[in-house]
């Protein structure tokens, strides 16, 4: 149905010739944009309703004094549904530590929360299919579990800024919302996210469409194909400064995959974009000593590079 609408608009409405390069590119652009915005609206709305049942205060109570490994799994899963923005990373970190959430489990949450988010999920699902979206989520959660587990094992509690342990956090009650309030929250949240990402999505789908229509086939095979051993670490390096902008990166990555970038390299790149964010490191500097930030980045980078190589080998 969407395809018919795009055909009607582009070939009848704009009078472009079906099968021409320009007509094809614009048709592709219209179809993808409508599809992505429909999916973003529906899925973000659904996820926000789910999220309203898991405020950070409740997640904190669930994770408090959990055993390692089992706790890491729960934390990584809760990271998907707990609303989180990097501007709240510091209070969330302090709140967790203060209420007895072990350090490694806190990290599992801090890794999974930005990496596995609904915007990335929609973009991957809509543009690359549900299988790749599922691979991304599974690898993201696995990385969060393992990286958090190791940070816990290394016993790095002394590398947290000392004041964190001296803090007294007031207790807030979790107010129960009515379903109408949850709907209201979901509506506001969906509007907020769409407002934030729409321009990036349109520009990125436009660039993706341009690459799709005009770049020669296989032009990336030599640089980003399976056989270039440096492609994965390079992709991670390039991904770090493009922080947390899944909406703007995934449409372009989709086009690059069609032009010969291998899937493992693409996954590593997208994970570096969402999980290794430079501003978040600066924010975390408030609660972590530099050495712990370095260890955190190193463990995360190694896990992401490993995941990239793994999928380059098995797919």
């Amino acid at each position, binding site marked *: 149905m969407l395809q018919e609408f795009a055909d009607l608009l582009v070939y009848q409405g704009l009078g472009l010739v079906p099968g021409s390069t320009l007509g094809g590119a614009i048709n592709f652009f219209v179809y993808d944009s409508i599809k992505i915005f429909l999916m973003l609206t529906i899925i973000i709305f659904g996820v926000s309703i789910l999220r309203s049942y898991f405020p950070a*205060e409740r997640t904190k109570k669930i994770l408090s004094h959990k055993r390692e490994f089992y706790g890491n799994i729960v934390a990584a899963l809760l990271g998907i549904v707990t609303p989180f923005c990097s501007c709240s990373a510091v209070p969330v970190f302090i709140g967790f530590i203060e209420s007895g959430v072990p350090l490694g489990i806190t990290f599992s949450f801090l890794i999974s929360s930005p990496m596995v988010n609904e915007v990335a999920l929609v973009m991957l699902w809509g543009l690359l299919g549900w299988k790749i979206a599922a691979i991304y989520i599974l690898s993201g959660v696995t990385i969060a579990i393992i990286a958090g587990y190791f940070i816990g094992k290394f016993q790095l509690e002394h590398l947290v800024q000392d004041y964190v342990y001296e803090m007294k956090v007031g207790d807030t009650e979790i107010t129960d919302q009515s379903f109408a309030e949850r709907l209201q929250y979901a509506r506001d949240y969906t509007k907020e996210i769409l407002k934030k990402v729409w321009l990036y999505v349109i520009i990125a789908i436009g660039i993706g469409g341009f690459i799709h229509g005009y770049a020669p086939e296989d032009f990336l095979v030599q640089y980003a194909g399976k056989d270039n051993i440096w492609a994965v670490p390079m992709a991670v390096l390039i991904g770090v400064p493009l922080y947390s902008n899944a909406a703007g990166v995934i449409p372009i990555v989709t086009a690059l995959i069609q032009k010969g970038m291998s899937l493992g390299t693409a996954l590593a790149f997208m994970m570096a974009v969402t999980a290794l964010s430079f501003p978040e490191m600066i924010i975390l500097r408030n609660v972590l000593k530099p050495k712990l930030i370095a260890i955190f980045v190193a463990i995360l980078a190694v896990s992401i590079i490993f995941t990239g190589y793994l999928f380059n080998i098995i797919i």
Partner: protein
Amino acid sequence: MKIEILGMGCTKCNTLEDTAKQAVKELNIDAEFVKVKDIKEIMKYGVMTTPALVVDGVVKVSGKVPSKDEIKAMLQ
């Protein structure tokens, strides 16, 4: 009335402050505004998601910017 805006200086904190100031003006009430930026002070309220709005020492909302009408309801 004492109104505190909790947050470490994100853009949403400024939006919340502006909205709250408008609400106060429209309700024509006397209120003192304080911006709390120090993380230790913020944590004393048990708030984990910013920005947060505190009215006379009570946390009214955290983690989102409520609409002007919602703030008005909290102030009355």
